[in-house]
């Protein structure tokens, strides 16, 4: 689908009538219906994908994904199951009993509006229902109507709304215009986290078969083949071997990774996007070089070949199921601990959910770097270490030989990924690595980094092309902050530790700041690594000429 040009969209964002530009809708928000038209919604899951999940992924949980069927969001008949309203309300009741967060977040909001202009979707669209407070009100109004005394007695006067098809449409629209980035929750005086609201909203939508293909198909692939892309074991391996060929061409060094090897000390898991798609593959080349450089005894797995977890964007059952492979594989291979690659939502799952869902990992040992001897006590129970923690420790102990001049052809800024920033607190480890592998580094403005970082605009499974305009709008706050350092410091590289970012920020930069490239941190590490026995490097890992080698 052709998408509006950046200059026109820029005018629309800055001047078009929206709540961001001061135009207040004439109708109250509950009287503004959600209208689906091409470009403003992600395609529903294909019937066969839902059939797969119903029959193969969760035969034990009938109804978790509603009835497999074809349906069209633009139609006024979504082929919803008989009594779907009841299914939703029962589902809501069940979740109120399961999640204290939901109860508190439903009851405590005072609508102070501190969250309103913190959401990148609101900043880019000016759509009132993209203010986190209203996104939550879409669910809260139904909660009030059916689960509070005031709502039961006073109904609309108390802000209650019955569950109707119109409400369901709003849920589908706005719970898929939230990337669960948690920025609003930083600013909320009660810590109300819209990510929590959106997750539960999506769980409820699944119960009546309302879903999107861009999440459900990768989840199906991940269940069956081990990774989102559906790469089968030999293809997965072949892709990595191709990367090794490129490494050899660039450095003259042959790295020999192993796969599904029992008895390795460390199992390495990274998002599969790193293995097959630009610019993630350069990040993967960085990992390969680093592990070779330090002589790490590690293995890849084709069975647990996905770090990412689209279950996080589906429901907690799916998240647990997909995540379970990591420990299962670590146990089967008999490794001592697990090392995780660069990915945002993967690390949200690993840091805040994995041990609870699939632990205890008592068959593993507290991770200890075989190179430096550092014990990662912060991962004492989960037994999984982030590549940035691992690399920072190596650099601190002087165990890697680095030539940061190899990144002199770039001027870099740092994108904190939402999940690693606000659901983990990984902020300074990657910065430390960065400052050791490149000489030209500039921070974006303070309201746009660290815990205030802006999402790429396409997280939580929204990185699909049919909603490109929405993505470019939602990514604008990020792009705008990059533009700021590009204009002042000639920044031309946006580095991050997230696989979804690497894909989506690339589209975002192409659109708003066409001269800025996106890379993973480990690509910069790989560029800077001085390998034993290597030839003189003339290019970086993406075959771009190094500074002084342009001739």
């Amino acid at each position, binding site marked *: 689908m052709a998408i509006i040009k950046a200059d026109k969209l820029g005018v629309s964002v800055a001047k078009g009538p929206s709540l961001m530009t001061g135009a207040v809708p004439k109708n109250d928000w509950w009287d503004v219906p959600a209208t689906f038209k091409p470009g403003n919604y992600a395609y529903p899951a294909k019937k066969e994908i839902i059939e797969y999940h119903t029959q*193969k992924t969760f035969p034990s949980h009938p109804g978790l994904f509603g009835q497999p069927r074809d349906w069209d969001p633009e139609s006024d008949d979504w082929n919803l199951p008989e009594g779907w309203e009841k299914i939703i309300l029962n589902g809501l009741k069940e979740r109120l009993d399961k999640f204290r967060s939901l109860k508190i977040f439903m009851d405590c909001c005072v609508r102070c509006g501190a969250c*309103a202009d913190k959401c990148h979707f609101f900043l880019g669209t000016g759509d009132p229902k993209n203010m986190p407070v209203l996104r939550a009100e879409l669910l809260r109004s139904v909660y009030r109507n059916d689960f509070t005394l005031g709502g039961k007695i006073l109904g609309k006067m108390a802000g209650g709304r019955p569950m109707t098809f119109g409400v369901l449409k709003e849920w589908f629209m706005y719970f898929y215009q939230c990337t669960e980035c948690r920025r609003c929750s930083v600013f909320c*005086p009660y810590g109300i986290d819209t990510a929590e609201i959106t997750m539960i909203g999506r769980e409820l939508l699944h119960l009546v078969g309302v879903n999107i293909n861009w999440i459900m198909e990768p989840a199906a692939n991940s269940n069956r083949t081990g990774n989102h892309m559906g790469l089968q074991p030999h293809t997965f391996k072949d892709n990595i071997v191709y990367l090794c060929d490129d490494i050899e061409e660039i450095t003259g060094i042959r790295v020999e990774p192993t796969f599904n090897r029992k008895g390795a000390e460390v199992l390495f898991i990274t998002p599969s996007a790193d293995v097959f798609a630009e610019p993630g593959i350069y990040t993967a080349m960085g990992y390969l070089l680093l592990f070779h450089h330090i002589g790490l005894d590690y293995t890849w797995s084709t069975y647990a070949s996905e770090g990412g977890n689209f279950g996080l964007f589906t429901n907690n*059952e799916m998240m647990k199921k997909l995540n379970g492979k990591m420990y299962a594989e670590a146990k089967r291979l008999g490794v001592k601990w697990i090392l995780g690659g660069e990915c945002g939502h993967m690390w949200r799952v690993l840091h805040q959910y994995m041990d609870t869902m699939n632990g205890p990992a008592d068959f593993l040992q507290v991770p200890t770097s075989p190179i430096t001897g550092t014990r990662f006590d912060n991962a004492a129970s989960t037994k999984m270490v982030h590549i940035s923690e691992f690399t920072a420790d190596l650099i601190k102990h002087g165990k890697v030989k680095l030539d940061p001049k190899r990144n002199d052809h770039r001027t870099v800024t740092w994108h904190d990924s939402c999940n690693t920033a606000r659901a983990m607190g990984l902020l300074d480890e990657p910065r430390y690595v960065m400052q050791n592998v490149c000489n030209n580094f500039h921070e974006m403005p303070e309201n746009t980094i660290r815990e205030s970082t802006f999402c790429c605009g396409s997280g939580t499974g929204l990185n699909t092309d049919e909603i490109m305009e929405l993505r470019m709008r939602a990514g604008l706050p990020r792009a705008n902050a990059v533009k700021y350092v590009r204009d002042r410091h000639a920044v031309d590289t946006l580095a991050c530790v997230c696989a979804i970012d690497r894909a989506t920020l690339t589209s975002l930069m192409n659109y708003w700041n066409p001269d800025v490239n996106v890379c993973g941190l480990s690509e910069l590490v790989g560029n800077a690594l001085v390998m034993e026995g290597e030839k003189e490097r003339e290019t970086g890992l993406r075959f771009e000429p190094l500074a002084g080698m342009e001739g």
Partner: protein
Amino acid sequence: MRILNPFIAVLALIAVGLVAAQVPGGQALIGIVLPYLAFALFLGGVAYRVMHWAKSPVPFRIPTTCGQANSLPWIKQNKIDCPSTRLGVIARMILEVFLFRSLFRNTKAEVHEGPKLVYGSSKFLWLFAILFHYSFLVIVLRHMRLFMEPIPGFVAALEFGDGFMQIGAPVFYQTNAIFLAAIAFLFLRRVMLSNIRYISLPADYFPLFLIFGIAVTGILMRYVFRADVVAIKQLTHGLTTFAPAIAAGQISPIFFIHVFLVCALLIYFPFSKLMHMAGVFMSPTRNMINNSRMVRHINPWNDPNIKPHSYAGYEDEFREFMKEGGIPVEKE
């Protein structure tokens, strides 16, 4: 209608209070029966709501990390905004509850031509929220003089501090003015900022009007109608000693309106957003330790029957490919 209806509701409450104060038995109803009832409902309601929340587990450890986590020993942790110990969480909660730390972070975003997004500091909401809550607290504590005999030292000290400017007789309390100004700010902000007006519900205006009504009747009682404090104290102290009595005809009707509105607030409280007072202590994104990789958090409803697609099943499907690709297999 979002503004008018709650306004009318508060006017109606005032009217009921005014009328009830004049009918036989009405004063005893408002001055004695209702306060007991309201206080019981308030305590019971808040306790019920808190227990109702507590009944649901916290299945996952989901703190919002707002700073550097506990990591390698040489990386400086932000021990308050990203706490890895109970002490850190206590510090975080103290700052949140007493100083509204998260609200202090507030910024205001603007979009300019370009497009260019700008984020400015915006502390007014924080400032007036602080003023509102603290002056409310001081006013409530000052009222303890009416319920206690002898008057506790801290109450006398508070009164003295609050009236240190020594203006007028009876002495003017700064908190009264600050309180009214803060309510006015919170109201005007709701009405004048377009996005806040758009999200506001009757349930947002009602407590503002109600609290405003309480403040105004209280101030009128003290400075304008000069209600008989001795008679009032006799009644209020009687309430605390469970020997309430009303000196007939000595207390001005404005007192009963004031009490009626306060009782309305107490009764309304547990059913409303005002429960944020208790909720802020229980918010899992704020009150949890960020140590989920160090200590296993237990989810009571974790379903052990959800198991990953097994390796055996995977190998069965792909064994030939794996063998051809030189990937080790379990079964040849």
